[in-house]
């Protein structure tokens, strides 16, 4: 009943808004002129966002454009330094997430807030329990309500089962159910499709449209342009913490969205430069690791980028970890510059001149709580010693050189790495490995989760390395990146090498490589 009333009043306001009598209420939630600073960065400046009732507003921007901060300001996690928030035309100040929720703003974060061991009901009713007359929790009523809400979102599930026993799609619906239950007027969805399969995405879109038809305003954050075109009524673009533009979806094109997002036209996403092909730097023969790798063979040359393509789980990262001595191997030979080596741990690998930039930057690449200075020397402390002691002067000089040449944006070399943006963190990891004087560089998903500008800078580092005659191996799940940057490509599937394709070959295209990745054979 309440639901219906809210919807009616929304519709009423909407009508009024269209007549121009109540212009304040045209938007259900409006953020004006917001500014938010963090140490060393202005995360938001003159930011605005306006959501109409019963619309799906797309929100798009590069990584680091300020989307997360914008969301957190709207949900009361952060308080803006300047600027105002209006809900139904009324000025609001959110001191914490509860106040934002009370005003009807809900958010489904990319990293879901699901307690996997608790039931769906428990997850939905956390903090807003239904209590019986005796003051104890009334599970019967809650289960019933939970089932209803989930059913209204197209999910026929048993609410008594633990949330973790369902897939990501259902877990996401639990989050949405929470929002529906607090009678949210606006629901923010932060990259909701990133962890969903095709079918689940379709269901999510259907649910979004239904919520929209109930008069709820939806902010849909996504990196995938085709999703925005399929789903959204309007799209807002932000860049570098600033508001850029909002247009009806019909007035956007792929190109105009991208150029609004990056602030320039991207003529060359992949600034490929060629080195001079040299000798075999790394040769791997019959690499075996129980249950993961089944006889991997390949050769990587000096002065070239060797791309590693394949589906997730094809054994690419495992191959690299095995070569680097991060995991023990069960068989096979590894040759560095023609000499057989027996690498049992990362320390020995580094001694052989191998550098390994891991795909998990925060978990395996950096000590986030320490400074840039410390992280830059982590893989080669011996090189920065004079006698028994660390040579701070040498560290300082080299560190400044790294910061300049890699264009690490930071107020000082003593900044805590955890405070930097993803792209800058990645550059610190690269700096760490450049400082080891390695000549075989393994880059595992080097551009994952960093923005377009930083990506290009990472590519340029790779270009520089191959021009210096070094050997670069790049594992990537982004086919355009593989095609854009590699001199040769190894395609893996199920722990085996399926194909090796030279840049000049007729198979050096997305179709052929995908075919091999899916298990097909390529003719000669």
């Amino acid at each position, binding site marked *: 009943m309440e639901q219906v009333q809210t919807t009616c009043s929304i519709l009423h306001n909407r009508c009024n808004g269209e007549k121009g009598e109540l212009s304040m209420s045209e938007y259900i939630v409006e953020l004006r002129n917001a500014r938010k*600073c*963090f*140490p*060393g*960065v*202005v995360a938001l400046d003159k930011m605005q966002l306006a959501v109409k009732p019963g619309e799906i507003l797309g929100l798009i921007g590069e990584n680091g454009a300020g989307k997360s901060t914008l969301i957190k300001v709207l949900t009361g996690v952060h308080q803006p*330094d300047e600027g105002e928030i209006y809900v139904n035309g009324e000025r609001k100040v959110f001191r914490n997430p509860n106040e934002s929720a009370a005003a009807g703003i809900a958010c489904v974060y990319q990293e879901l807030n699901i307690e996997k061991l608790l039931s769906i009901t428990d997850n939905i009713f956390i903090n807003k329990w239904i209590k019986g007359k005796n003051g104890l929790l009334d599970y019967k009523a809650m289960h019933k309500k939970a089932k209803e809400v989930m059913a209204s979102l197209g999910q026929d599930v048993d609410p008594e089962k633990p949330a973790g026993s369902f897939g990501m799609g259902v877990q996401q619906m639990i989050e949405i159910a929470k929002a529906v239950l607090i009678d949210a007027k606006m629901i923010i969805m932060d990259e909701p499709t990133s962890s969903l399969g095709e079918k689940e995405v379709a269901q999510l879109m259907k649910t979004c449209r239904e919520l929209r038809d109930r008069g709820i305003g939806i902010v849909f954050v996504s990196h995938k342009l085709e999703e925005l075109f399929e789903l959204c009524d309007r799209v807002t673009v932000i860049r570098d913490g600033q508001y850029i533009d909002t247009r009806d979806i019909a007035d956007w094109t792929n190109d105009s969205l991208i150029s609004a997002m990056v602030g320039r036209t991207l003529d060359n996403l992949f600034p490929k430069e060629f080195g001079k092909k040299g000798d075999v730097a790394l040769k791997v023969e019959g690499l075996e690791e129980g249950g993961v790798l089944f006889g991997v063979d390949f050769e990587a040359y000096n002065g070239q980028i060797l791309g590693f393509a394949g589906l997730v789980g094809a054994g690419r990262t495992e191959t690299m970890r095995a070569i*680097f001595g*991060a995991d023990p191997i069960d068989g096979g030979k590894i040759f560095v510059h023609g000499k057989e080596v027996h690498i049992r*741990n*990362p*320390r020995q*690998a*580094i*001694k052989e001149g191998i550098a*390994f930039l*891991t795909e998990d930057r925060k*978990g*395996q*690449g*950096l*000590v*986030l*709580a*320490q*400074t840039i200075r*410390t992280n830059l*020397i*982590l*893989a*080669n*402390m*011996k090189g*920065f*010693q004079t006698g*028994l*002691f*660390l040579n701070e002067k040498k560290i*300082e000089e080299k560190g400044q050189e790294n910061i300049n040449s890699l264009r690490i944006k930071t*107020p*000082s*070399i*003593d900044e805590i790495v955890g405070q930097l943006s993803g792209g800058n963190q990645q550059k610190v990891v690269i700096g*760490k490995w450049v400082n080891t004087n390695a000549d075989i560089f393994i880059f595992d998903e080097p551009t994952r989760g960093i923005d377009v500008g930083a990506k290009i800078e990472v590519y340029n580092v790779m270009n520089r390395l191959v021009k210096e005659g070094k050997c670069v191996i790049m594992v990537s799940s982004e086919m355009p990146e593989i095609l854009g940057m590699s001199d040769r490509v190894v395609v893996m599937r199920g722990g085996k090498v399926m194909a090796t394709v030279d840049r000049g070959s007729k198979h050096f295209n997305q179709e052929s490589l995908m075919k091999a990745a899916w298990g097909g054979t390529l003719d000669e």
Partner: protein
Amino acid sequence: MNKKKKLNGNSVLGTLAALIILCVVLTICSDKFLTYSNLMSVLKQTTFTALLACGMLLCLITAGIDLSVGANATFCACVMGMMVKANITNPVVLLVVALAVGTLIGLVNGLLLTRLHLPHPFVSTLGMKNFLWGASLLVTGSQMISGFPKGVTWLGSATVGGFPVSFIVLIVIYIIMHILLTRTALGRSIYCAGGNMEATRLSGINSANVLTFCYVVSGFMAALAGIVSVGRSGICNGANAIQPYDTDAIASCVIGGASFMGGKGTMAGTLIGALVIAVLRNGFTLMAIDSSIQNMVLGLVIIGAVLLDVTRESLAAKARRKEAAAKA
């Protein structure tokens, strides 16, 4: 660099100020406090706590903890007592055995953590503490033992013009540890292994060995503390294994700026922290305050120190935000 140094300096200076205020208050409250002999006995008390705190600090920096240091010190003293009872009175043999036993216990703590992958050293070292408590009573037959040779008691009892030799040794150890932590690759690795063990390992550093090293040092320092305690009291007593020595050591580190989250802490701060604890205990004794009250107050001091750490952290974060806002 300057900014960071200033921040660290401030926290050490703050602790120092607290120490000075405490001393001024005690000077006013008791006319016995500011006497040479009393101050020297404070330094003797400090030595014991500070030795335990030295190893504890390393463990705390790695986001670990060693709850067995107090029991370890007692056990090492008791092992010497057992040997004395068995008529082994060569001081060199006694000292070497005590240091070896303490270090070995530290090694076991380290290996439990790094090779057997016990989840958090809190549990394993707590178990070790109880084990050593029982073992201390076992080797001494639950009796106090006296009659240690001079060579053993020298370190804890000798003075130079009334100034305890043990405190001079302590200062030397602290200077060496300070240099180790701030100037060497091993020291930097300790901070890093505490922050992210896997990233440190994949950077070619043997994180497991680095962590083990910290617990070995902790065990060695505990043995040294045990030797000092024998020198001070002339006896060993297995029942002391459950005295709150570990708590005093942890309090020293935390008052001195270490954090349970790891990655933080200095030798200088820890020394001042140990002085604060020793001065507090001394003041209680001078004012004849009941030992139960003493323990309650010390408990509150620890809670206060952690609270201070948290507040300091959030104030620093706020200051950085303001600075950033001003710059932008």
